[in-house]
């Protein structure tokens, strides 16, 4: 930074500049214009495909010889996945399979919390979910579409424990997700029903403001944030991102006419519209009566939807900027997949500019119970979260001041990055 000649000392100059007095006139321009926003490089977007209830690794991405589903070859020599996923096999060069997740918790809700936040659930303190973290750290500030959207892709079967909802916690209510209940219907409630909506909204707003001034508590602020966001979105031309009718029929076919497929398509549209984090959750993977039968039914639409998503992102040149993550809260017991199993399970990452066409980690092939132990490179929930943040352009070491003057790193300090994935 150059000080104006012969007029001010550097120190005085800096003082004035920081007071906003000189800014915008003589200083190099990015010191002044929205310096915070400008200095924050753009991160990557993420589409999280959440298999609620916990999907069986041996019936998907870590098949074993002699298992219920046979291994099939993929587009990467030497990597095999379960026979039910021939279209994903064609995408293997865009994917990385993490086969050695080991995550301590076998209980649905606590595991969902752990894998969404990177922290164990404790009483009296809430940790922000990864989607909210992305919204806060790489979301477009002040954008008219929320930075974090969740899409409900339906329920294949009851069960799977209490449903986890992403909470922004100390990051603030503006980072809570916008929830889409049904991708086929989009944001049906967002269309104004009457012409003079704006004037009515203004009236409401005035009342709300008076209330907020009288009672300045966080809950009121949260409601206010949600309200402002909804109105902004209602007026935005980008709300069309929630409308799948715009997409050509052949592409909609390719994603598959299941709610999950259409959710994936909406996720792509939302990322195009500037959303940083989309979580598509599909409930019903808690297969206690044998995984083979149920996954045989689900496999075709998972196969179509996820492969169509990867190919569509790639065709549009968006894949390098968009990380697709497939996971649940844990895996299933080796063999029939009946029970919960957090000791050795798989997740899949695609795109995002990471190293793909690889597997990371390895589970046992032999022994009494093939696949029940990790043979190479265990990946903890903390390692996983730190790597996810890093790929998305978020600094995992950043500390926040949580309530009670408690400095809180975004990710637990004992995490080590999964170097194999980082290009």
């Amino acid at each position, binding site marked *: 930074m150059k000080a104006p000649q012969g007029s001010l000392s550097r120190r005085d100059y800096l003082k004035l500049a920081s007071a906003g007095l000189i*800014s915008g006139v003589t200083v*190099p321009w990015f010191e002044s*214009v929205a310096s915070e926003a400008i200095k924050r*490089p753009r991160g990557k977007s993420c589409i999280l495909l959440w298999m609620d209830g916990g999907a069986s690794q041996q019936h998907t991405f870590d098949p074993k010889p002699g298992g219920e589903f046979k291994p099939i*070859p993929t587009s990467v020599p030497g990597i095999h996945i379960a026979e039910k996923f021939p279209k994903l096999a064609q995408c293997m060069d865009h994917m990385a399979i993490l086969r050695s997740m080991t995550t301590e918790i076998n209980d649905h809700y606590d595991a969902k919390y752990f894998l969404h936040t990177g922290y164990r659930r404790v009483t009296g303190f809430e940790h922000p979910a990864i989607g909210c973290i992305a919204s806060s750290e790489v979301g477009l500030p002040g954008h008219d579409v929320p930075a974090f959207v969740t899409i409900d892709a339906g329920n294949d079967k009851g069960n799977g424990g209490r449903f986890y909802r992403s909470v922004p916690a100390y990051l603030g209510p503006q980072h809570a997700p916008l929830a889409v209940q049904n991708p086929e219907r989009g944001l049906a409630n967002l269309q104004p029903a009457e012409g003079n909506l704006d004037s009515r909204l203004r009236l409401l707003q005035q009342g709300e403001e008076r209330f907020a001034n009288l009672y300045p508590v966080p809950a009121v602020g949260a409601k206010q944030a949600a309200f402002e966001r909804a109105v902004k979105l209602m007026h935005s031309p980008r709300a069309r991102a929630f409308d799948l009718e715009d997409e050509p029929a052949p592409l909609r076919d390719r994603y598959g006419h299941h709610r999950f497929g259409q959710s994936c398509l909406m996720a792509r549209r939302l990322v195009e519209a500037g959303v940083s984090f989309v979580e598509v959750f599909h409930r019903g993977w808690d297969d206690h009566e044998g995984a083979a039968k149920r996954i045989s039914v689900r496999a075709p639409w998972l196969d179509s939807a996820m492969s169509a998503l990867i190919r569509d992102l790639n065709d549009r040149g968006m894949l390098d900027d968009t990380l697709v993550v497939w996971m649940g809260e844990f895996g299933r017991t080796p063999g029939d997949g009946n029970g919960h199993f957090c000791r050795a399970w798989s997740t899949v990452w695609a795109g995002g500019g990471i190293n793909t066409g690889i597997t990371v980690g390895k589970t046992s092939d032999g022994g009494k119970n093939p696949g029940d132990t990790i043979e190479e490179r265990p990946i903890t929930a903390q390692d996983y979260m730190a790597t996810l943040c890093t790929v998305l352009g978020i600094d995992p070491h950043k500390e926040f001041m949580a309530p009670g003057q408690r400095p809180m790193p975004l990710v637990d300090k004992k995490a080590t990055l999964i170097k194999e994935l980082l290009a």
Partner: protein
Amino acid sequence: MILNRIIQNAGAAGLLVALLGFPPAAPAGESRESAARKFTDIGGSVRLANRGTDALEVDLRFCDASFSEAHLALLADLGSVAVLRLNRLPVTDAGLAHLSDLHSLTRLHLEETQVTDAALKHLADLPNLAYLNLFRTRTGDAIPGLIRSLPALKQIHLAETQIAPSDITRIKKEFPHLAVTPDPDTDKIRALTILKDSESTRDRAADALALAEKNFQNLHPLAEQLKREAEEKKKVAEQSKKNAEAAKKPHEDARRRADDLRRQADEAEKRAKAKSGDDGLKRQAEETRRRAAEALAHADAASEKYAQIRSQDEALQISYRELQRRADLARNSEKLASEARDSLAAAQAQVDDARKYLAELPPP
């Protein structure tokens, strides 16, 4: 809305600076500032492309309706623009003329804009352009020429453009390190990889079937006979095991006796040493030592005999197990052969699928 506040301050500060008699602003800084402000005012974003550089990423995808391609003229004022995103904006060939001097541009997004072949000449002089996205634009014939004029180009996206597939093949041959999407060759390489892998699985399955069938032919007729033989051998093996166990005790007893005597001899020698000159004790010790040596020789002989019996028994057990295995194989050979046939059929189906997929790929 820190931005707005800062910008408002800027106006007031300008006046103040003039009054205080500061030297006038550097024109470059001011025009950068004002260009950035104009972009952010219409909903665009201007930020650093990467930590630690001053190259910018200008993202105009989310501009509001007041965006017009005349705004692109402001890009030149921003200085080093590395990344420019114009996806879906109403940008035409005329607008692209404003990009022709952005020499620092490394990444350019033009997907779903209204540009055509005629606009590509404006991009021909961008020495650092590494990434170009033309997805769903009406470009085609001019693309190969453009690629030849871009020395830094590493990645180009051409899905849903009007480029001829034969042009893509030609470009790939000419620039082997350029990543082109969509790439019919990549799809073909993938499909071939899968085909090759399926074929090797199929070949292994065929070998396994050949073996299973050989076993079936050779062993199945002998199944009854092998079973009988195995049963007889089993009796012999069991008897031999009993013999071996019976031989174990005498060998152990002899060894124990030898150990006892050796200890007695040691003690006797110790006593004799303590009372040196007592010839009775000395003789007794020598006698005990002699008996201990005899017992040791005996024990060694017993051990040797036992080892012999055991090794005979082990050989017998192995041959019994082998016979038993053959008998089992003979009995199951039909089932195993039929399983191997199923595996081969499944592997062949995979090969057929892979071939079919390959055949259905659009021709290059």
